[in-house]
Structures are given as C-alpha cells and as structure tokens.
C-alpha cells in the first residue's frame, strides 16, 4: 500500500514542480515580447531627430535596425516610436518591407503583428511596390484570423485598386470573413476611388460567391454608388427568396426611383406564398410615395398573415396621416391581428392609443351582445 501512496505523492509532486516550472519558463519566454527596449527606443528617437535636422541617419544605422528588427521585440519597439512620431514612417518603410520573408517564417502571432506594422506605415504619400504587395498577399492564406484581418487592413490602406481586387479574390476563395459587415466596413475604408472600385466589382461580380455578392451589393448601398441598373439586373437574375436578391432590393430602399416604385408595387400585387420578406421590403421602399393607388395597396396588406408586413403597412398609413375615420374602418375589419399591430404602431401616442383601445373595447362588447 505504501507503494501506492508513494506513487500518488510522486505524481502530485512532479505535477506541481512541472506546473510551477512551466509558469516560470513561460513568463521568462514572454520577456522576448514584452520588455521595453529603452536604449533602442532612445536611439531610434535620436536618429529620427538627426534625420530631421541633418537629413541623414548615422552611417550604417538603418542596416543595424533592419538586422535587429528581425527579432519581434525590436520591431515592437520601433513601432512604438513610429506611433509617437508618425512623420518618420516613410524613412523606415523599406526596412519593414525587407523583413517580410523573415516574418513569414515566424509564428501566427508574429505574422499578424508584422501585417499590423505594415498596415500602420501610412500610404498617403507612398505607393506600394507591386512585388512586395504580391508577396504580402500570401499572408491572406494564413490560418490565423488575425493575420488575415491585419493583412486586409493593410490592403485597404495601400490604396491600390489592383491589389485590392486580388485580395478580394482571396477573400472570396477562402470565405475569410464570417460577418458581412466586417468585409463591407473594410471596403468602405479602402483608400481607392469608389467609382473605380465599383466598376471593377461590377465587372467581376458574376465570378464571386453569394456571400461576396451580398457584401458587394451592401458596399454599393453604403458607399452611395450609382448602381441602380446593376441592382435591377441582379433582382431579375437572382431567384426569389435568395439573400442576394434581398440585398439588391434593399439598395432601392435607400435610393428609390420611379422604376423602383413600379417594381415594389408589382411585388406587393404578386402576393406570392412565402414572399413576405419582399412584401415587407416593398412596403418600406414605397414609403416616400403617397398616391392613392399606393395607399390602397397598403390597406390591402394590413391584414397580411405576416406580422412584419402588417406592421409595416400600418406604419406607412400612420406616417401618411391616417385619420380617426380610417382607424375606425381598420378596427371595423374585426381582425384581432390587425388590431394588435395597430395598437403597437400607436403605442407611443397616448391619445390615439386610448382612442384605439376604446374602439376595440366597444367592438368586443358589440360582438358579445350579438352572440348573446
């Protein structure tokens, strides 16, 4: 039995020693990244000042920086100084570029950091070399989401349409973003001519996956691109019920035109089974037109079996100045679901809310009397 206890004791002691040892080693190894490099930082600061005044760095110093920055802790220190003195970024650009192959061999964390440093170099006045860019895009194939994300951030900063389109191809191929908004936000922040980007995206559109197509259409909507005809073509070509089609329809909610009005009215008239999303979008899209024909169409949808269609149709009528008589007519339909949506629409208006409540109550009483 003593042997069993000894085994147990030994296992526990080994585990404990290993645990404590591991934590000490881990912390020590982390010093590779975390220590401040005050002497190096100070020297970088001094050299930047010197370059500012004399126009030159000390002889051979830039080469030594290149050599040192092969280690991540020096790159961290250099980036720290450049964040404080952004005007000096141009002077270190080539140094950072030259480290690409070195960092491509490093861990995911370090690759992501390198991509971040490249993205933070500032490209307002500098053009990126196509050779560097093509090599840099290989980071997009990394398994690390952070490397991917930081690389895309750099691509948006480069301000080069060709590189951006190549990057979009990679994003499309590997479905790099899980959320459309992340991709669309990136495209919106890209420092390229929006018209040129839109034209290039329209040209390549058919090659892309549905996810990328949705992102592109969202981009058109947010970037205020004139893509009315393009979106109409998408609506015609895409099957009903597809998310891409819905995204194209949403474009016209923001930029409605006469052609869109006809399209929305047709959507409402068609009354296809399961077509509630399109009906809802059409009602929202028709919000700026107040003709009688449209109002009648809306009235015919207040009894829809779908909550969103009902409530949106009633919102249209409310916004177009529905009077008490019309409200009474709606309640006269004796549809409890329509009444529910009506109550919801006027929940913020105590006067109308009371009026509607009273009418519904009276109607209920009448029904009871009739039953009796």
């Amino acid at each position, binding site marked *: 039995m003593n042997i069993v206890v000894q085994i147990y004791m030994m296992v526990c002691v080994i585990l404990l020693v290993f645990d404590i040892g591991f*934590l000490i080693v881990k912390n020590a190894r982390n010093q590779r990244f975390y220590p401040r490099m005050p002497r190096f930082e100070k020297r970088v600061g001094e050299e930047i000042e010197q370059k500012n005044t004399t126009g030159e760095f000390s002889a051979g110093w830039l080469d030594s920086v290149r050599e040192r920055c092969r280690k991540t802790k020096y790159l961290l220190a250099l980036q720290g100084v450049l964040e404080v003195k952004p005007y000096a970024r141009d002077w270190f650009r080539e140094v950072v570029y030259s480290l690409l192959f070195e960092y491509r061999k490093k861990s995911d964390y370090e690759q992501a950091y390198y991509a971040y440093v490249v993205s933070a170099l500032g490209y307002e006045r500098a053009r990126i070399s196509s050779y560097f860019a093509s090599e840099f895009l290989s980071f997009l194939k990394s398994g690390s989401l952070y490397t991917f994300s930081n690389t895309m951030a750099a691509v948006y900063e480069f301000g080069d349409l060709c590189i951006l389109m190549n990057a979009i191809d990679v994003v499309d191929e590997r479905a790099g973003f899980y959320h459309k908004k992340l991709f669309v936000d990136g495209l919106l922040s890209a420092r390229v001519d929006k018209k040129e980007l839109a034209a290039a995206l329209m040209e390549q559109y058919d090659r892309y996956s549905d996810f990328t197509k949705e992102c592109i259409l969202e981009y058109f909507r947010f970037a205020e691109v004139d893509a009315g005809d393009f979106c109409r073509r998408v609506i015609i070509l895409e099957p009903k019920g597809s998310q891409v089609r819905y995204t194209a329809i949403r474009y016209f909610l923001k930029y409605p035109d006469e052609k869109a009005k006809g399209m929305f009215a047709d959507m409402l008239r068609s009354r296809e089974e399961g077509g509630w999303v399109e009906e809802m979008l059409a009602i929202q899209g028709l919000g700026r037109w107040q003709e009688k024909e449209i109002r009648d169409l809306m009235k015919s949808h207040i009894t829809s079996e779908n909550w969103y269609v009902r409530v949106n149709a009633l919102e249209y009528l409310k916004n177009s100045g529905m009077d008490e008589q019309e409200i009474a007519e709606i309640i006269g339909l004796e549809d409890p679901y329509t009444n529910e949506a009506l109550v919801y629409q006027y929940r913020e208006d105590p006067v109308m809310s009371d009026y509607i409540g009273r009418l519904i109550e009276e109607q209920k009483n009448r029904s009871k009397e009739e039953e009796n």
Partner: protein
Amino acid sequence: MAFIYEHMEMIKAVISFAEIFFVVYLIGYASFLFISVLSGCNETFNSMKKKQLRNEIHHDYFVPVSIIVPAYNEEVTIAETISSLLHLDYKSYEIIVVNDGSTDQTAEIVTERYGLHEVQRPIRRQLACKDPVSIYEGSMAERVSITLINKENGGKADSINMGINASRFPYFICMDADSILQKDALNKIVLPVLENENVAAVGSMVRICNDSVFQDGELVELRMPKKIIPAFQVLEYERSFLASRIFLDKFNANLIVSGAFGLFKKEAVLAVGGYKNNCMGEDMELIMKLHEYHRSNHLPCVIKYAYDAVCWTQCPERLRDLIRQRRRWHIGLIQSMAGHSRVMSMGSYFYYLFYEMLSPIIELFGFLCTILAYVVGIINLPVTVAIFVIYAVFGALLTVITFTTRNFLSEHRVKLCDILRAFLFCIPEVVFLRFVMAWTRMLAPLHMRGKKTKWGKIRRVKINYDSEGET
C-alpha cells in the same frame, strides 16, 4: 462483528481494490486539475501576447444584443445592475428586465428610476412562458432602450424565455439581476461570434465582487471579501473559471455557460425550445440541449468561453445560503446529465459524471471504506493521513497558483494582504469547503421533490456601487 470476522478475507480484498480505485481516482483528479491549471495559465499568458502583438480584429461592428435580466424580488440590487448596464462600452444593445411576479418593489424601482411608461405591445410567443401582466418601455439618452415586462410568476427559466420572446436582436445575453458587467464585457463576449460563425453560446468569467468597489459600472478596487465564506468562494471560482473551463474550451467540451452572464444565438436557442422550465440548472440544461441538438442533426456547434469577458457577481455570504445554492446547482446537474445521455459521446461528459455528479457518492464510499478498514484493523493510519495531506496540499497549491497567476496578469489586482489571506485560506478551502460541498451535494437528491424551477432564496447585499448621483 461476527459477520465481519467470518468474511475478513473478502473484506480485505474489497478494501484493497477500493484503495487502488481511490488512488487512481485521485490521480485522475489531480492530473485533470494540473492540466487545466497549466492550460488556463498558458492561455492567459498567450492572451497578453496576443494583445501586445495586435492579434485582434479591428472593426467598428457591434453585433446587436439583447440583455435579458430576469428578476424576482431584486429590489436591493436591480437599480445598480441596470445602471452598470447603461455604462457599458458598447454601441448596440437593449435591456429587457423580466419581473417574475416579484412581491417587493422591483418593478416600481425600475419604472420610476428610469422613467419607463406603460405600452401596449404584442409579444411573439416563440417559446412557451407565462402571460405578461404589463409592459413598460423607455430609453436612456436615446441610446439604450429599456423594457420592463411584469409577468406572472413562473420561475427563472420561464422569465428568460419571456425575455427571448420580447428580444429584438439575433443574439441575447442572459444575466443575473445581482451581477455587474465590466465595462468592456460585451465587446469581449461577442468577439467569438465575430471569429466563428458556428458559435451558438459564449460563456464568461464570473468573478466575485463582495466588498469590492465600483464606480460608473466599472470596478475601481478589487478586494478579497472580509467574510470567510465568500473568501473561500473567490478561490474556488478562480480555480474553476481560470482553469477547467479554459481547458475544456479547447475541446469545445464545456457543458456549462454560467447563468450569471452568457451570450446565446437566439436562432439556436429557439431551435432547441429555449430554457426548460422544470429544471433547476436551466443554464447547464440548455448547453447540453444545444450540444445534443447539433450533434443529432450533424450541425456544427461551438460553445466558446470568453475568459476576458468579466461579470462581477455576489456570492452567498452565509453558509446556509451557499448550501442552498449548491444544492440547487447539483440537482440541476443531475437533471441535465440524466436528461441528455446523447452527450455521452463527449469526453467531458465523463468528467462531469465522475468528478462532479458522482463525486459525493464516491467520496462517501471512500469514507465508509476508511471506517470499515479501521473497524477490521487493516487501516494504515500514517498512509491514510499522508494521502489526505497530499490531496489537500496539492489542491491548495494549485488554487494558489491559479489565484496568483490571475492576479499577476489581471488589470485589477488585490492588495498584498489579500494575497496573504488567499495563501492562508487555500488549505481550509480545499478541506472545509470541499467537505461541506460534498456533503451538501450528496444530500441534494433528497431535495428533488417538486419539479418546478424555483428562484434561489439568497440574502442580497447592496453592491458597493459608488456612482455620480447614485450611492
């Protein structure tokens, strides 16, 4: 006694086997504890490295979330909880307080303090729940909308289901009415959702805030609780949340997302029918249901653990409250484990089965064996004491390692005297608290009468919330 002497040889053989079983059992536990502490600490170090090396997604996208706060007789803490929610560093969220037929001033405090007005609003009943009595709405600085739903009493699960029905956004957060979220907690807890489309739920780090000081929804001074029972629980929570959950997370094997603060994909929760009403551990039951549903239908499902999304909660200060709470948790564990045997294909199921659910019985069996061995005179006292001491010291040291690592790496650090107290408490925590908890859990099945979910009756203490105009 005559029976014992007649069967002495057989009893000795049984006890020998039992001894070997217990040593294997204890080594298994020690190894799990060791690996999980190692993994947790390693992960925490890595998170620092990630932050330093800008391994984060840069975005301005805030996944809209609905925060559901079920409340039953929470007049002491509800206002502070909502105030802390209003100070969150997040752009797109709504707060839904579901008052589950409180008999105190919970509803009045919320409506008056936040200027809510009654509205007629239909609620789509996608999940079964008790009827609403009245609904109030309002918003703070036109930024965050607050909804208060007063409903018939139906239990915590029923209240959360009502909150889900009333929520507008595709993700919801479920939290306790006596908890405070750290200012950046929402930002942190939604990150896994941005990183992986298959995430169905995200758990968080729950930490104890008894005696700590808050200002504008943010912790300003972390203190080790003065009372001994909460102090023990601090050590226990740190060990559990920093170690085992991070370790299990690596294998997508977490079966618990704490009810104190968890994020859920509404679509996934609706698919499994929401929270179960007649279950004590509704949070664990939901996670098991999510695993089971997705496995059965061959759908990807990831349950993540965001250990840097921190929720500060109050733990019971009295032993009797603690016992009541743990009894409830253990009954919930039994109900969840028994109701979802399909999840058995997950390795972690066996961890929960042997080291959580059955551990009190195994420990009782061990205790009985020790007594029997003593009666038949085959016990080796020094050996027994040695095993017990090793067990206690090993557990205590790992607890201290977890506590100090967390303290070393955290932005909120306790004072030196609190660290010394942690050192002082670590052995009593392993010996005393674990013993009491084992006893409580062993007796828990006796309290399983009545199937309805009940709210835990724990005496609430006002949170040390020092805010402008709110003290």
